[in-house]
């Protein structure tokens, strides 16, 4: 039976939520628990996997409109996104886009209850979330993609960017939407920045009511199934739209500057020494210049084969008006400026009739962790940058990435992971991770030594760039380069890699539009194969049931 349409949403299990919100009976699970594709990485860390990896993907309908719907089990590993669950979400969205492109529109409904990347499989979680971002943007060209943030876990990390990329966000008083969880901010920036135990403050910052007031979610309804169902039905019926939340990055940047005063100038200027800056200068034809008057976003033109690429770096700005983003982090100002500069470039190139490559140069300590950042919804700013890179690719610009130092979490999602080809320098200072070991220890309630030992023993939890390469998240690793003092030969070798990537891109061999095959990611492949095989039969089952007059059982899994 289906639960009564009246009542609380947040108290239901994920399958009950889907059963309550989708049309009765039109609901078939894809890669469900009996396909037994759990996480291959948890048991070696002493954790018990779940047979659906905590992500439930179904085909069904809302008011007769075909939808693919995702629900996340917040009780399993905090609703975190690992290899399998992430592949499930990305594949569901990709299959919906394929069907929509062929004239059979399938909208998407994402019931987001997630802390973000699963720290125990961080590299693959990040890669999957990047694929989810791409898939949401591709699908939203055809149909509504609706996020619901209504559960006790909230929606955090890279998945808060995913929510912001959706065409609609619906929230309830029990939902929270933020990039960095309060505990992580306290760990990274100190208790003066935020007191994670101050519940009232946290809700004022990231609660859906505050988000709605500030325009960061589109619809706010009570925690009531009928109200949520009405909001979802209305969003589906509305058809394809685009949200204005991320539409005007230059205006957002302007507003930020008007509302937050610049800090007094420091008397001593520390020289900027980040590798992102150094490599931009090394590759550039001329001196790098700030984009949109943002000293921490530098761009320069780089000669590449028969064309000239635009290279972009996020660099430290000791005088940044937001101090949490002064060491090269991706903060509010950086993210909006990045989006604005990419949009402008694509527009200029469109007018000139050219589609030059874009190169993201990465050495970023991460996204900015701070109270003001959360209050002003850094998730939206970072999502705008993700969207701008994706639009550039959709407009026909090849996007490449050069990792010269730290490739971290949300900043890498926003600057580097929306890319056709990722090249990293093999060097001790080059790494990829989702969170510092100290923060992982705090969030997963383990001691630091245990976290470090697990990171060394678990491929997707490793901080080493060579391991990210083994997992296929980094396409190429270039050895024997002096990352701090590149020689002319080093620079020529890096350029030659991008030259080869450009030639491959022109031959149509871009591998990063979806998750590439990799022997270490067989679970990803199993998810994709199972879902693709079940996709059509799930649609057939739905059609048959629609024509039958009797109401059939929804599925297994609903506890009666």
């Amino acid at each position: 039976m289906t639960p009564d349409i009246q009542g609380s949403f947040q108290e239901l299990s994920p399958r009950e939520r889907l059963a309550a919100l989708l049309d009765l009976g039109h609901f078939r699970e894809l890669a469900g628990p009996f396909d037994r594709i759990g996480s291959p990485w948890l048991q070696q860390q002493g954790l018990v996997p779940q047979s659906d990896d905590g992500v439930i993907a179904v085909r069904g309908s809302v008011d007769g409109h075909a939808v693919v719907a995702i629900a996340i089990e917040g009780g399993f590993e905090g609703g975190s996104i690992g290899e399998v669950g992430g592949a499930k979400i990305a594949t569901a969205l990709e299959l919906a886009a394929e069907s929509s492109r062929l004239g059979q529109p399938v909208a998407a409904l994402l019931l987001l209850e997630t802390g973000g990347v699963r720290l125990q499989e961080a590299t693959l979680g990040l890669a999957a979330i990047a694929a989810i971002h791409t898939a949401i943007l591709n699908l939203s060209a055809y149909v509504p993609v609706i996020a619901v943030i209504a559960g006790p876990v909230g929606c955090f990390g890279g998945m808060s960017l995913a929510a912001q990329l959706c065409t609609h966000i619906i929230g309830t008083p029990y939902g929270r939407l933020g990039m960095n969880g309060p505990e992580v901010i306290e760990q990274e920036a100190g208790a003066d920045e935020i007191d994670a135990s101050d519940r009232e403050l946290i809700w004022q910052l990231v609660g859906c009511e505050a988000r709605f007031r500030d325009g960061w979610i589109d619809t706010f309804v009570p925690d009531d199934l009928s109200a949520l169902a009405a909001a979802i039905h209305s969003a589906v019926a509305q058809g394809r739209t685009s949200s204005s939340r991320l539409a005007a990055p230059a205006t957002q940047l302007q507003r930020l500057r008007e509302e937050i005063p610049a800090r007094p100038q420091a008397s001593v200027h520390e020289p900027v020494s980040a590798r992102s800056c150094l490599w931009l200068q090394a590759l550039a034809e001329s001196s790098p210049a700030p984009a949109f008057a943002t000293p921490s976003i530098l761009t320069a033109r780089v000669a590449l084969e028969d064309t000239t690429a635009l290279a972009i770096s996020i660099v430290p700005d000791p005088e940044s008006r937001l101090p949490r983003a002064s060491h090269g982090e991706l903060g509010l100002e950086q993210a909006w400026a990045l989006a604005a500069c990419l949009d402008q470039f694509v527009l200029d190139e469109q007018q000139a009739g050219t589609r030059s490559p874009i190169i993201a140069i990465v050495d970023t300590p991460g996204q900015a962790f701070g109270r003001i950042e959360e209050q002003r919804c850094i998730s939206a700013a970072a999502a705008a940058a993700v969207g701008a890179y994706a639009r550039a690719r959709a407009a026909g610009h090849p996007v490449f990435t050069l990792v010269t130092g730290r490739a971290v979490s949300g900043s890498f999602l926003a600057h580097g992971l929306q890319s056709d080809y990722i090249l990293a320098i093999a060097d001790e200072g080059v790494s990829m991770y989702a969170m510092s070991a100290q923060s992982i220890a705090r969030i997963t309630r383990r001691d630091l030594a245990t976290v470090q030992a697990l990171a060394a023993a678990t491929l997707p939890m490793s901080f080493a760039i060579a391991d990210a390469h083994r997992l296929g998240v980094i396409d190429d690793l270039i050895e024997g380069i002096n990352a701090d003092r590149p020689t002319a030969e080093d620079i020529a070798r890096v350029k030659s890699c991008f030259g080869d990537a450009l030639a491959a891109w022109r031959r149509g061999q871009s591998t990063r539009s979806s998750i590439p095959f990799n022997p270490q990611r067989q679970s990803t492949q199993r998810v994709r194969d199972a879902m693709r095989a079940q996709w059509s039969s799930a649609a057939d089952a739905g059609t048959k049931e629609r024509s039958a007059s009797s109401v059939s059982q929804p599925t297994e899994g609903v506890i009666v």
Partner: protein
Amino acid sequence: MTETFTLSFPASTAVLGRAHVGVVASGDMEVLLEPRLQGASVRVVTIVSGHRKTWEAVLTRFFERHPYAVAIEINDHGATPGLVGLRLEQAIELAMKGPA
């Protein structure tokens, strides 16, 4: 570290379909249940090692009361013996509703 073991019990009553209940969350467990022709088998993966004897006692008692021919997989995150019985009964109840 996790502990994994499989236990067998005599059973012959048929169930009509399969069932999935519960979640691998603190103090809870996930159950996958499928029909079998004869006998019951239970594969347990648990985060709490060293309690195989307790599992044997709880499951023996369960199959004495409910001698269903089923293949069960349990993914356990520290469920109490009381909850183990409850989740298994929920799974049987669901499986008796017929094929999903």
